[in-house]
């Protein structure tokens, strides 16, 4: 069973529908026992970092997420869920979860449209089980104004170029997180969700 964490941040049902389509059992929940007893955790989200962090702290979801990380439960962050596992966000100058060292930065003004909206490539910087069977030409659907900037080079799994070159997949141990929306990225997005559902949380 995969728990999709409900922290009132955007459209959780799209992740649920994609998993159901793949025949992968899942539930949307913010119940601590359900989360900690699940085989895997997905942390999705669209919206603003400030509001999301407020909700997470008010429901003590932060402590549960730290337990998930400590217990080596495979963890997938998506979009806002990727930004707020970093130390802090320039959006609302918000202190975040500090699960992966780094910050979320705003795209620089001038020359590019913000948000970065649409389909873009990823360049893989280190192999990861989540990338199994992904065609290097595959594009993924992005919609965001802030991007992850991990502190340590080894925490970047893939990069994407839009005005700047930024980390579009980050990861450390049992945590992997995408800035794009795999649930909205057609067949290769679904492939990535399928890969995650089979991942044991280890990177060889």
């Amino acid at each position, binding site marked *: 069973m995969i728990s999709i964490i409900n922290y009132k941040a*955007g459209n959780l049902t799209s992740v649920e*529908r994609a998993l159901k389509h793949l025949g992968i059992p899942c539930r949307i929940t913010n119940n601590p026992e359900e989360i900690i007893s699940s085989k895997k955790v997905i942390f999705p989200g669209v919206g603003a970092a400030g509001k999301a962090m407020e909700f997470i702290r008010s429901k003590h979801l932060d402590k549960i997420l730290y337990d998930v990380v400590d217990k080596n439960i495979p963890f997938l962050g998506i979009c806002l869920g990727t930004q707020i596992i970093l130390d802090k966000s320039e959006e609302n100058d918000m202190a975040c979860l500090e699960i992966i060292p780094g910050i979320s930065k705003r795209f620089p003004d001038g020359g590019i*449209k*913000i948000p970065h909206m*649409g389909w873009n490539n990823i360049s893989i910087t280190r192999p990861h089980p989540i990338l199994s069977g992904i065609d290097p030409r595959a*594009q993924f659907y992005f*919609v965001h104004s802030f991007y992850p900037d991990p502190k340590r080079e080894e925490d970047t799994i893939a990069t994407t170029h839009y005005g700047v070159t930024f980390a579009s997949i980050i990861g450390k141990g049992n945590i992997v997180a995408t800035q794009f929306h795999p649930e*909205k990225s057609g*067949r290769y997005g679904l492939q990535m969700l399928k890969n995650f559902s089979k991942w044991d949380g280890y990177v060889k």
Partner: protein
Amino acid sequence: MLSKRIIICLDVRGGKTTKGIKFKDNIDIGDPAAMAKQYYEQGVDELVFYDITASSDKRDIIIDVVKNVAKNIFIPFSVGGGIRSLDDMYNVLNAGAEKISINSAAVLNPGLIADGARFFGSQCIVLGMDVKSVKKTPKIPSGYETVINGGRTPMGIDAVQWAKKAQGLGAGEICLNSIDADGTNQGYELTLTSIIADAASIPIIASGGAGVPEHLKDVFLKTGADAALIASMVHYKQYTVGRIKAYLAREGIPVREII
């Protein structure tokens, strides 16, 4: 590199896809969920469903359409037509749409853009603009006027000013439809698209007039459009998404490869 998006528009009336010229003389052409799945498999980048159901008591039908579509397609799609309140927006998003497109209701009540952006995020709010070419006047300095009700009601608002205002209120994207070009198959209104794309810093979807792949090439090469809306050229099976994208790729336009 960020691809230029190809978006297919399905006008939905009473649960069926329909197609008309200049918003008149509509004929039914198929089941929207089945058509959506077919276009998804062909490799379209995004879909738009526009509810043109006339009577308000049949509004729930579009929610069922959205639910059926969302079950089978895993790319973004938006829904427009008849959305007048936060509740309407919530119902459509909750049924599985990524974005909502608001048009007449936003012109009549611009606060709806700000409210929608605050509750659901700017990325959810697409401003649909219907625009008509008019004589330049002090009130309409660009010569393009915002119209509503499918082009029937001129609003005395300059299209450029409206685009900028909507962006300031929190619209995340603009779907720019030329009433003059719509349904003609003669190509997008390039001047209008250029003016609005240059004035706004949010993504612009060009709409109205696409008949052949060359029209998409023109709008991408000659204007700052980020996406192009198409309808009849695929609905009547003259072209597939794959054929259009292969043509654009040969012309040097970045599109998402179908692999």
